[in-house]
């Protein structure tokens, strides 16, 4: 099968949906002729014109609010917020409008909007352009939160997101945009709330999100040389979360590591650890461990940033520790 990069896979999903459905429009900063900061919308302006690929002023609150309005009136906007860091500027639009309207109107209005954004450090983009606070949105009932880790998942989940009648926060990862993988040409849909076992194993479960999936797979490869058999589970969507697949894996291996690039405290990893403690405690052979970013701003200094990012070495270290039990 042909291979596409993660960015191209999303691009293809957007194109195919725009071709199939006139209601699908794109909004965002520099997504038009420039093609978006990570080139995810490259070529779409040329193909669909300025009416459907709208370059917006630098005002997230305004264009995210406009997208909510457009969705309410029947369009299916896909809006890009250049970095997740900038969602703080439009948090009222997301949290109090996008997530609440359908509920508050008793289901009489719906907001089928997709908000694309990205997380991740590692591009020397400093503390305001490198954060990974996707957990914020998992905390807001009314939002689907999707974190694809591969080109295949990115396209399949984007198709499902655009078809969704409810708002979706579609969280991409800066360091994944250039990762390649097999992607079918046709449209296909990956269900929300269905985790995938990216690598089966019997000794320890690593539940990993976004770029941590790739890093955990590399770690698993290394660890297999030492005879440690790691199972990597990718939840793919954090809301809804596929607890059953996670718990089934934990019951099988008895050991759980959760790898998520968000800060260590109060994150996605903490909650998945809590699920294991609540619902599979009797199967745990060892303490549950987390691999996350430190509880500090992302440093600008390249050497500090390298150290800050949780990577395969951190996963290997923690897995080895947990295997002592």
């Amino acid at each position, binding site marked *: 099968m042909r291979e596409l990069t993660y960015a191209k896979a999303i691009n293809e999903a957007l194109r195919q949906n725009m071709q199939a459905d006139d209601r699908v429009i794109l909004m965002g900063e520099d997504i038009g002729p420039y093609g978006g900061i990570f080139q995810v919308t490259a070529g779409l302006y040329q193909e669909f014109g300025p009416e459907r690929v709208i370059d917006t002023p630098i005002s997230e609150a305004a264009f995210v609010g406009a997208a909510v309005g457009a969705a309410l009136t029947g369009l299916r906007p896909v809006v890009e917020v250049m970095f997740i860091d900038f969602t703080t500027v439009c948090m009222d639009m997301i949290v109090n409008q996008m997530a609440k309207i359908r509920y508050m109107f008793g289901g009489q209005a719906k907001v089928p909007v997709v908000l694309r954004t990205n997380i991740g450090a590692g591009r020397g983009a400093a503390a305001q352009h490198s954060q990974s606070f996707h957990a914020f949105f998992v905390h807001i009932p009314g939002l689907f939160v999707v974190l694809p880790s591969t080109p295949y998942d990115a396209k399949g989940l984007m198709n499902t997101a655009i078809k969704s009648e409810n708002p979706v926060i579609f969280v991409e990862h800066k360091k994944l945009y250039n990762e390649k993988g097999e992607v079918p040409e046709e449209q296909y849909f990956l269900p929300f709330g269905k985790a995938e076992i990216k690598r089966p194993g019997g000794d320890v479960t690593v539940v990993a999100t976004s770029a941590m999936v790739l890093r955990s797979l590399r770690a698993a490869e290394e660890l297999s040389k030492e005879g440690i058999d790691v199972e990597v589970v990718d939840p793919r969507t954090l809301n809804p979360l596929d607890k059953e697949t996670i718990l089934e894996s934990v019951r099988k291996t008895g050991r759980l590591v959760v790898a998520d690039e968000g800060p260590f405290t109060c994150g996605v990893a903490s909650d998945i650890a809590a699920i294991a403690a609540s619902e599979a405690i*009797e199967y*745990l*052979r*060892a303490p549950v461990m987390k691999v996350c970013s430190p509880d500090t701003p992302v440093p600008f200094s390249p050497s500090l940033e390298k150290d800050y990012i949780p990577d395969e070495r951190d996963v290997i270290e923690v897995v080895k520790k947990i295997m002592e*039990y």
Partner: protein
Amino acid sequence: MATEVVVPVLGLTVEKGTILKWLKKEGDRVEKGEPLFEVEADKVTTQVEAPATGILKKILVPEGVEVPILTVVAIITDEGEELPEKYRTSTEAFQAPSVSAGEERRVTEVARAEERKEVRAVPAARRLAKEKGVDLNLVKGTGPDGLILVKDVEQAAAEVETRPRASSVAKRLAEREGISLEAIKGTGPRGRVMKADVVAALKGREETPTAEEPFGKVIPMSTMRKVIAKRMSESAFTAPHIYFFTDVAMDKLLELRKTILEDFEKEFGLRPSVNDFIIKAVALTIRDFPFFNASLVGEEIHIHPEINIGLAVALPDGLIVPAIPKADKLGIGEIAKMRKDLVERARSGKLKIEEIERGTFTVSSLAQYDITFFTAILNPPQSGILTIGKTRTELALQDGVIHTYNVATFGLSVDHRIIDGAMAADFLQTLKRKLENPVLAFLHL
């Protein structure tokens, strides 16, 4: 009101006891004075009575666990009374007893034992232990800080499974006869070893002494073996022993025993043994030689107030020395009765600690074996031990005539720090005279 059940003080030198068996279950009603559990310390099993009447609400220390004496091992409450809060969380962490000021040292020990005994296990190990019926208290953890891991429980469970299952009657019989259950093939359900199997194995043992290969293996010492090893080496390496032997003509003693046998049996319901007479004669001799009833304590010689004669009893895997108290003041009938009872209870492991600890002098007889004479190591802290060989027939020349007579060689080991050679010789000679002229010796009875 809740009453704490503790492991009682079992003797002056006893520091710890192992809970062998709970005779009541949690929730059972118990009467004050009723046997509640069995505890083993040194070589002896003691039944501990319930200190109060009520409900055995909580057993804090399971069977098989060794705890310092005075450890609270169970709680008795009134009927309908809730278990007091402080015991609820402490199934595994034992309670420290309330003790007087002089016993802080012991309290620290108990506290340390509590730390040691608190079971730390990963949750999956706890679940597995529950499923497999493994007592986590008995599992050694190999994880970080001694944490019990799943593999530790798996190993313990595997050991339990390979251990032969046996009926309780079979277990008791095998224990009494000193035969290993592992060597017996069970014919009961699922290979369970039944009494008949043990009986068959015992028969087989008489024909072929060892069913299993006795060489090329490592045997962990039993508690009794350890105690014997410790006490014997302590005695051999601290008390300088000297040995004395003399031949004792046994005819008159045997004659005396024979004469009184029938009447004695009628009156006391049992037959006197030669040993009963020897015990009596030894006790009477000690009256004239107080140093043979003494112990060395630091730089003092302590002469004990009572003459309590210990009798070495061989067991399948060791030996034990219960003592007859004030033997110098007892009649042969009383000595015989007491001897019979003590020997029986020694063999069934039912002696009380004080019955062993009270001995002040020991008699050890191998008269049933074809042993002419032998030496013995002192039973510490005693100062003397008497050994008796087989009574044999020899020829003697008396007034120019050769005749046969019965003779036994007696040996005496003494602690040279307390007793010198001349005194020892005098003691042995006096004893010999008493035994060779028993009517006179036992006149004051």
